[in-house]
């Protein structure tokens, strides 16, 4: 049985979650996500996610899985060793929303995009869910490796922009831009669908495929995938190299980079 923790989420667009631990309770956090903690909370960094039983092999396996999901090999346990309630806070790494997921109420398993996990009550395991559908793995926008949160405690996930929860009725289908899926219950069928028209595929700006989600089950969508924001920021950032004088207009960027073949080499 996972620890029962109380929490409060602060902020609007750049959020953090403050978790209250009773004496003896503990939370696990993604390495690097802790923002502050009160006196009396001791932290211990463990190899894996703290749920593996047995020998070194089990631990190595767990840690290896974490590496696959893009998480750090280590996870930190924050436990309250004091005699009063203590608080520890975990901050989201980029603009977006933090959403609490009570695994005990939704059947004990939640599948989410890798990197989505922020923190959880001790006893929640963070594993991988390997996408076996080739099409969904290649073009679904989430890759082949997803995270699987298992247990009966509270877990917090984070994603970019605004997060939307939607409960799909049995058989209900939703087409989603690839990359916008954050997570879902395992009862949801996740696949891809060709956009349908060659003109749309080439010039529609959505890529070649939609992700399709078919109910029953709950899904979470993000309005702004980090990769999309990163590519916009990258496109707007001053270019490096020879063309760094001008503002980042497309004309300037392209012409500057390409046309400013300086005299002495020009290929910097």
């Amino acid at each position, binding site marked *: 049985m996972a620890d029962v923790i109380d929490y409060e989420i602060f902020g609007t667009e750049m959020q953090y979650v403050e978790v209250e631990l009773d004496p003896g309770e503990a939370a696990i956090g993604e390495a690097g996500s802790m923002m502050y903690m009160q006196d009396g909370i001791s932290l211990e960094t463990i190899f894996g996610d703290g749920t593996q039983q047995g020998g070194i092999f089990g631990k190595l396996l767990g840690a290896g899985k974490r590496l696959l999901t893009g998480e750090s090999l280590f996870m930190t346990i924050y436990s309250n060793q004091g005699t009063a309630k203590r608080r520890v806070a975990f901050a989201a790494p980029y603009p977006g929303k933090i959403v609490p997921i009570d695994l005990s*109420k*939704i059947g004990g*398993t939640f599948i989410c995009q890798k990197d989505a996990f922020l923190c959880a009550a001790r006893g929640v395991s963070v594993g991988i869910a390997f996408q076996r559908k080739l099409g969904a793995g290649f073009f679904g926008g989430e890759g082949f490796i997803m995270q699987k949160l298992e247990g009966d405690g509270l877990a917090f996930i984070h994603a970019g922009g605004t997060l939307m929860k939607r409960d799909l009725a049995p058989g209900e289908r939703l087409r989603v831009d690839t990359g916008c899926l954050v997570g879902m219950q395992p009862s949801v069928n996740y696949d891809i669908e060709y956009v349908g028209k060659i003109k749309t595929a080439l010039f529609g700006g959505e*890529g070649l495929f939609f992700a399709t989600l078919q109910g029953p089950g709950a899904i979470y969508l993000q309005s702004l995938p980090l990769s999309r924001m990163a590519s916009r920021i990258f496109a707007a950032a001053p270019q490096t190299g020879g063309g760094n004088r001008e503002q980042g207009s497309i004309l300037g960027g392209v012409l500057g980079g390409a*046309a400013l073949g300086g005299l*002495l*080499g020009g290929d910097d």
Partner: protein
Amino acid sequence: MKNVASSGTGLLFGPGVDPAENAARFSVSALGIQFQGLHAALHVPAWSAVRWRRGGFNDTQLLVEWTTPAGEFSLSVGDVASQGALLAHLPSAPSITTRPSQTTRAVSSTVIVVLVLLPIVVIGLLLWQADRLIDWAVSNIPVETEIRLGREAFAQQRQGLAILEDHPGLPMLRQIGARLTQGSPYPYEFHIARDEAINAFAMPGGFVVVHTGLLASADTAEELAAVVAHEVQHVERRHGLRGLVHAAGWRAVLSLVLGNTGGSIAGSWVENLGDLRFSRSQETDADLEGVKALVRADIDPQGMVAFFSRLAKDPSHLPALLSSHPASTERMTAVRAALPKDRAYPPLPYDYQRLRGAAK
């Protein structure tokens, strides 16, 4: 037969079931599925009334569906033990098949294979036939368009440059420029910018900028003329435009392949790599054509060899790129080989030491 009831857990969906609390415990018997706890009041579906299929993430779930007067219900079961309890009572074959037919699957996998291969083929073609494709594209862009593009780009570039309108060498630069660009379709503009870097650059449409650092480091007007000839050839040979088409081509291909997200970063990498391969041959091209232009203008092309060799020898002036890539020696060898033999040139009529401006 004994009614051995076994039990399991799953997720229940249907009218009146709160999706936030739909974890369900159930027991199975010959009568049907009996829910417990929160959902104990629900109607017990009989085995004859339910359908089942595989579904969910990776098809790992067993989905049992049934219809009541209130609407459609669905029970999704993931763990093997609970699935076993249900399967003991369910018909062995799924009663609903949601799989697409064989032909649709075959078609969709062909589509996927084609869509994976197509970009690879296109990129391969682009790499392989890049020059020919770009030649074709560039030849279809009228000079007027190029001039307009260049003017816009230069207007933008200009804000970051310290253009000197009263530099003593400006008339000399313009006269040399005029000799080197006779008969050209481009309306050339020559400028001097205050910058210590030994550099000069040309933009499409005929905008040539020479840095004061370069003026100061050249020893004769012939050396300056050599640099100008080199830069003018970048314009005449439409190298800038080629670079632009090249980059735009990559951008178009990548946006096709990657959609609207994630393209930019990978894109710039590829663009830069492409540019690298591109620029070296262009520099050599500009050198050789520059020599021809100098000869046509009756200016001693020996200046080019002198200037580059001197720069390459003097480590304090050595621009990083010249030192790091051996191609520059090859470039000079190529230029030397291209110099016409037994030809005399009248010296340029300028007092270069005075006109090149104040010393650094």
